[in-house]
Structure formats: structure tokens, C-alpha cells
């Protein structure tokens, strides 16, 4: 099942794209597993995703910690800590 992966702020800039649609392999249990898998896609991905402590995530627009179960989402967003207001 294809999953839409969204990137925001400096994560988006380092990767070079704001979104990509990917078929996720089986065996990814948590969001952190997905981040590790994505980091192998390009040097930009590797740089953007190198330090998971600086990353936050949302699964189907619900904000979750990186150790949350991945499940079979339609949409996952990966981004830095928020700075609005």
C-alpha cells in the first residue's frame, strides 16, 4: 500500500522535496524504523534524518513520538519541533 510521506521546514529543504509516495517494506515496526529506512534513500535524506532527537512526526495527522507504532498509515509527516505563534 502506498504511503504519502511529507516533509516540512529544514527537513524538506535538506531532502529537496516536500512529499513522496512510497511503498513501505514490511518489517518497519515504529516511526523510528521508517525514519532509519528513509535515511538511506539519498544523501539529502541521510543529512535531514541523521539526528532523530531533532525530529517530530505525525501519522495520519496525529502527532506521535518516534517510538510509536507505524501501523499502515495513508500519510506520515516528518518535521522539526514546531515554532509557531
Amino acid at each position: 500500500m502506498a504511503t504519502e510521506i511529507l516533509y516540512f521546514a529544514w527537513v524538506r529543504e535538506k531532502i529537496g522535496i516536500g512529499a513522496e509516495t512510497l511503498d513501505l517494506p514490511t518489517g518497519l515496526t515504529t516511526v523510528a524504523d521508517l525514519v532509519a529506512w528513509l535515511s538511506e534513500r539519498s544523501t539529502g535524506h541521510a543529512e535531514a534524518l541523521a539526528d532523530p532527537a531533532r525530529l517530530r512526526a505525525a501519522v495520519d495527522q496525529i502527532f506521535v513520538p518516534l517510538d510509536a507504532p507505524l501501523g499502515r498509515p495513508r500519510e506520515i509527516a516528518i518535521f522539526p519541533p514546531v515554532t509557531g505563534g
Partner: protein
Amino acid sequence: MIAVTVDPAPIDIGAEYAAITAGGAGGIATFAGLVRADDGVEALTLEHYPGATEAALTALAEAAVARWDLTAARITHRVGRMVPGDTVVFVATAARHRAAALEACAFLIDRLKTEAPFWKKESLAGAERWVEPRGSDDAAAARWKF
């Protein structure tokens, strides 16, 4: 009544204030956040997560209405490019009495800063830099935990 707006257009504070007062509350509290010119910042660009942003702001407004028995809550957040002095965010709460309106307004801006998916980028001296989150914002948001 809850109203949440995320839009690149300049925020019309007069219209926002007129809307929040239309409900006939006894007390209105408002907060406006403006772009600062710290360190010679020339422009601020706000990025957000369309859909998730509006959902996060609506959830915060619903929580505030329930906790303080508000008659209305409005959150208006600008996105895109702004310059110092521009209004980034405007929060307004309406209640029968001042304490509920004031507390709910502070709750909304404190929690918005740590929970709503916005990201600020500063432009200065021909360079750009992403704003880092501040620990003091986390502390401000944490004081509203149930």
C-alpha cells in the same frame, strides 16, 4: 462559537475583534503576536502543515471552550512571508467574566506555540535561518496540563 483561520492574508484585527464581540460576552481577552526585528531580521516566513494545522488549532480552541466555559474562541494565524511589525497570530476569547477569558487566551497562545505545526524561518543580511524552539515555550505550555 469557534473560528480558526490559517491564511497568508494580513490579519484584520478590527474585523477579528468585531467578530468575537458579536456574541455578547461580558469579557473579551485578546493576544496579538507580532514579527520582531531581533538581530536585524528583515522578514519572517511561516510554513505550516495544511489540514493538520487547522485540526490542531480547532482541538485547542475546543479544549479552551470546554475548560473555561467560553462563549467564543477565535485563532487566526498568518502564514507565508511577513516583515517586522506584521501580526503573525491573533487569539481572542470571550466569556461571561474576565478571569476565564484571560486564562483561556494565555492557554491558547502557550499551547499553540508547542502543538500547532508551524515553522518560522528568518531572513537577515541576505541569509536565512530556521528558528529553533525555546525551552521557555515548553515550560509555558506545560503549566496548563490538566
